[in-house]
């Protein structure tokens, strides 16, 4: 392994990647948009009714989709390593369901606090859309591709998960996915994605700090 660099594992260029995303949308767009709508409904319901299970369930479905369809069918075309992500993403879905079944408690945050903390997480998505210049419905959005789904999952588990240990456990795979994706983006000179992922990382840190300070004050 020491004789490789990260660039050795990025066997495609940015143009090819964008073309893959375009073809993915044209073939699977209807299903992606349906899942995205489902996730929005589940998230709004979960925050206002303080029922995190609805968000977790919808997100777990997204992780299964990304594992089997995105990584297993599309990303696999360009990258032999995508097969490993199939297993990792399925594991993430399984972890979310397992946590849900074993711990029914809700976060002590109010819905207003959650909403105010969650709002900045929309920024990377909007920035992504503006910089990549994709049609608004066919970019790298939550449910469509791993990175935004990982950002969103991190936000959800850090804000809604009552136990910090469980929140961190559920953050491992999304964080790893984002980290590797950021390294790939740097190799591909995808400045937009690099900046977006780094911005998202800053949000993660800010969220964790906010929650930590809030806990200290209690």
């Amino acid at each position, binding site marked *: 392994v020491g*004789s*490789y*660099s990260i660039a*050795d594992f990025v*066997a*495609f*260029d940015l143009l*090819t990647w964008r*073309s*893959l995303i375009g*073809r993915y949308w044209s073939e699977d767009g209807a299903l992606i948009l349906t899942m995205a709508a489902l996730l929005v409904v589940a998230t709004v319901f979960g925050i206002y009714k303080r029922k995190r299970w609805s968000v977790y369930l919808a997100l777990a479905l997204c992780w299964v989709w990304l594992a089997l369809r995105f990584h297993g069918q*599309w990303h696999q*075309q*360009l*990258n*032999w390593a995508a097969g490993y992500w199939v297993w990792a993403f399925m594991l993430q879905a399984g972890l979310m369901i397992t946590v849900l079944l074993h711990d029914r408690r809700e976060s002590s945050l109010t819905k207003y606090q959650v909403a105010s903390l969650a709002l900045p997480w929309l920024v990377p998505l909007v920035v992504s859309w503006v910089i990549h210049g994709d049609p608004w419905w066919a970019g790298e959005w939550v449910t469509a591709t791993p990175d935004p789904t990982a950002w969103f999952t991190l936000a959800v588990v850090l804000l809604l998960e009552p136990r910090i240990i469980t929140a961190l456990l559920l953050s491992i795979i999304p964080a790893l996915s984002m980290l590797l994706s950021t390294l790939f983006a740097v190799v591909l000179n995808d400045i937009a994605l690099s900046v977006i992922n780094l911005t998202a990382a800053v949000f993660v840190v800010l969220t964790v700090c906010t929650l930590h300070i809030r806990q200290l004050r209690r």
Partner: protein
Amino acid sequence: MMKKTAPTNLTRRRALLSALAITASFTSSRGWTNTNTNTRTQLLAKNIPSSGEQIPPIGMGTWITFNIGSDQQARAQREQVLRAFFEAGGGMIDSSPMYGSAQDVLGDLLSRLAPENLFSATKVWTDGDGEGQINEAFQLWRRDQFDLLQVHNLVNWPEHITRLQEMKEAGSIRYLGVTTSHGRRHAEMEKIMQQVPLDFIQLTYNPIDHEAEQRLLPLAQDKGIAVIVNRPFRRGGLTQRLQNTPLPGLAADLDCDSWAQLLLKFTIAHPAVSCAIPATSNVEHMVENMSAGNGPMPTASQREQIAEIVLRG
């Protein structure tokens, strides 16, 4: 089961190259088959020392450029690149299971073009026993025989070399070799070259990455091992770096209109080098690359001048 087929007859292209080699007045000490005795030689082909077979000195790599998945538009464009390659007399195409869909794309496009002068080279790259990966390569390329099978980046080389030797004896491959890139693992490669009878090695060599000049290239000459050079442009970095540097005067003497041609001539003019395999997805660049295989080649002192200018640039 490993595919084992009887050795196939020489293709018309190989027969033609062999005939050229025979009828040429001599094979120079620098490895070129010439048609005249001038110090500036006219390129025909370079030598594979273990067999005496001649191959064109410019081949084609497929890292990144042919990993395009099922994109039919991109495949049609790459077909034009391949067509330009073969029309310009290209032969060697090199790929690997590490390159995503590149082998599948090649198999599809080569079946459309059915070139007679293909020199197929791929690799095995796994910690496992490699049989499944090699069989898959035959399927993806849609071939019964590979001209060259190499151990990619020396991964699990003792086991793979044994398998490749068996395959060579059975005729399902014609040559075997090992590869590395970026100047890595040269010491281990040198050890293998000393211990194992190899037909080919593949390594990185260009005016910046010239470590191979010290030990590996002279050893390859001593041992009669053909050398394939990957990343002659440092994955495009060298041509990018030199884009604002004016071509030196000697470029005109060498019939070079671009830095890409000059860099390729620098590489293939080394007497130990048999073939360079630049990668491109651009038809014009392919034509430009292939033209570097013709015309006068730099002398040793001219190569030194090129290296100095590139280092300064």
